[in-house]
């Protein structure tokens, strides 16, 4: 710095020599009582200040709107328009103000749980381990307690309305979503909420939240309401599981009984059929035997009638001849004698083995 800053300040306060700056600027080097050094310095300060101001103005007079955004431009507090993505100019020094609103992005609000902003190393979403049960606990129409977690996806359809219809549009969305979800769930009985009602609940909730947003005219467009976990309260859950298990158990018992029935009935049917077939076999055999025997009898009878006496004796003797060798012992009984008279008892005298061999050899 050419001049002592102290002196410069003093002059600036007293005004001494201060007014001469323009003149020295005009006249150039015509009047030399003041040192050229000071003259140059003052001008340079002015230049620097002016330049700084100009740069500041230049920098604050354009702005970039990102592809997913729209910018709302206010001039002296009044909204004058919306800017599309791209580079835009505005009046600097706070006369034009720009507010960016992410209109193209799908935003979401979570109820009953929070997804962490960052995923972990493996790319899985992290869930914040905190208790949001105050949001998720609700009553069903049959006055039971249920825990429902859900997500509302929405988009800012109208940035001006979003900014200027309500002060807390997002907070309002949350309030209304909770209110509506409780109304919809409260309008059904618990078992329906847990099972078949999910899709209908989501759709009804979506429509009602959208209707509320339309009534507030706050530029929010609800895209979907998605029910996540809908479960009984934690303490009751084991009992619900028990019911499911019991249901499985019932099915299993019925299946086992059916299995047993399916196993044994065909088997027994088979057995019964076998019995019938065997009986049929017996019948055939019996009839055939009867036919055979009678045929034999008839044949013998025919011959017998031709010579009854002879045939009779022959038959008798033949039969005895066949039977006697087989019989273990033969006893002859005579009238008037006390004890039976053994006729032959050769076999008892022989050892049993030999006797068998004899018999085999003899035949």
């Amino acid at each position, binding site marked *: 710095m050419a001049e002592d800053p102290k002196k410069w300040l003093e002059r600036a306060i007293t005004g001494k020599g201060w007014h001469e700056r323009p003149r020295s600027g005009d006249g150039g080097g015509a009047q030399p009582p003041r040192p050229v050094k000071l003259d140059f310095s003052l001008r340079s300060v002015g230049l620097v200040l002016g330049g700084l101001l100009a740069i500041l103005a230049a920098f604050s007079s354009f702005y970039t709107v990102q592809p997913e955004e729209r910018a709302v431009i206010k001039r002296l507090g009044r909204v004058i328009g919306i800017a599309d993505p791209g580079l835009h100019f505005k009046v600097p020094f706070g006369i034009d103000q720009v507010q960016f609103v992410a209109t193209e992005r799908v935003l979401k609000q979570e109820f009953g749980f929070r997804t962490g902003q960052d995923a972990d190393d493996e790319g899985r979403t992290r869930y914040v381990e905190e208790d949001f049960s105050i949001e998720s606990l609700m009553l069903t129409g*049959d006055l039971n307690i249920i825990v429902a977690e859900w997500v509302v996806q929405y988009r800012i359809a109208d940035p001006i309305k979003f900014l200027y219809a309500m002060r807390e549009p997002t907070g*309002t969305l949350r309030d209304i979503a909770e209110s509506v979800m409780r109304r919809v769930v409260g309008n059904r*009985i618990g078992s329906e909420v847990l099972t078949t009602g999910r899709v209908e609940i989501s759709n009804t909730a979506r429509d009602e939240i959208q209707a509320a947003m339309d009534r507030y005219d706050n530029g929010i467009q609800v895209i979907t309401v998605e029910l996540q976990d809908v479960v009984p309260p934690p303490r009751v859950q084991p009992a619900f599981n028990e019911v499911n298990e019991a249901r499985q158990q019932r099915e299993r018992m019925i299946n086992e009984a059916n299995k047993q029935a399916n196993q*044994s009935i065909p088997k027994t049917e088979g057995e019964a059929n076998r019995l019938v077939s065997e*009986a049929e076999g017996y019948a055939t055999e019996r009839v055939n035997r*009867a036919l055979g025997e009678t045929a034999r009898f008839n044949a013998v009878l025919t011959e017998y009638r031709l010579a009854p006496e002879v045939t009779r004796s022959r038959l008798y003797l033949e039969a*005895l001849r066949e*039977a006697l060798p087989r019989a273990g012992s033969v006893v002859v009984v005579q009238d008037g004698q006390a004890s039976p008279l053994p006729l032959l008892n050769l076999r008892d005298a022989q050892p049993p083995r030999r006797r068998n061999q004899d018999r085999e050899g003899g035949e």
Partner: protein
Amino acid sequence: MSKLMLWVASALVAFLVLANSLYVIDQAEQGIVVQFGEPIGEVVDSPGLHWKLPFIQEVRRYDRRMLAWDGDVSQIPTLGREFVVVDTTARYRIADPLQFLRSVRDEAGARTRLDDIIDSVARDIVSGTNLEEIVRSADWQVNLAEVAEVAEQAGVAVEQLDLEKPKKGRGKLEQEMLAAASRLMPGLGIELIDVRIKRINYIDSVRTQVESRMIAERQSIAERFRSEGQGRSQEILGDMERELRRIRSEGERKAKEIQGRADAEATRIYGQAYGKDPEFYKFFKTLESFDAIGENSTLMLDADSDYFRYLDSSRRR
């Protein structure tokens, strides 16, 4: 030199005056010009640049957008004496900033007044209503099949489930709250847009009871399933046993019938054949039965029998 100073000073003053008499009303705001605490003129509700008298007038700004009010959570007994926790929420707008300024001054003041008013209205309405009236809505329409299933599971008649349509329902009650609270709003310069029940839950002790009830209910359903399984299983096994016996006995009957018919047939055949000469048949059959004589049988023969006749003497008798 002093002329220049004067110029600078007057420029400075002019700037200050200008800065103090020009003001900007934002799109989100409405303003009231106040002079020594007294509101002057109309509400300024068009956004943009406006004039006022410098220094002696100041601008009070109020939000012109819709504002949210979230009440405290309060414990209220219902008509049925269950204690519930009710959380209400409401939306309002500063409709008359002049009145608003006079009665509550600012939003903090408004909020405390709204707390008092809406809380007491909610208290009145909830304590005069049964819980199911608050939980269910006017379009309550239970799925009959579903109800029947629930009743069947719980083992009670459908009528006992107490699932009737509410007389008023949640929506109507919210409207009543809005109407009751709105009556007091003109004095505050506030327009109440809606009042809603955000949350309604049992207090903790009641909640524990309800959960215990739910557990007991579930367990009895589980028990039913189990005994149903046993019952069905026994039924099936019984059916099976009956079927088995039927099949078996039918088979046996058929077999016996067949055997009987065959026996009858054989008897007829034998009868026919042997009837021709019963005496010879007896003789023939007796001889045949000699075939049955085994190794260990003892044959007893009369000494007078034909067999020995010729052993005794070959004389012709």
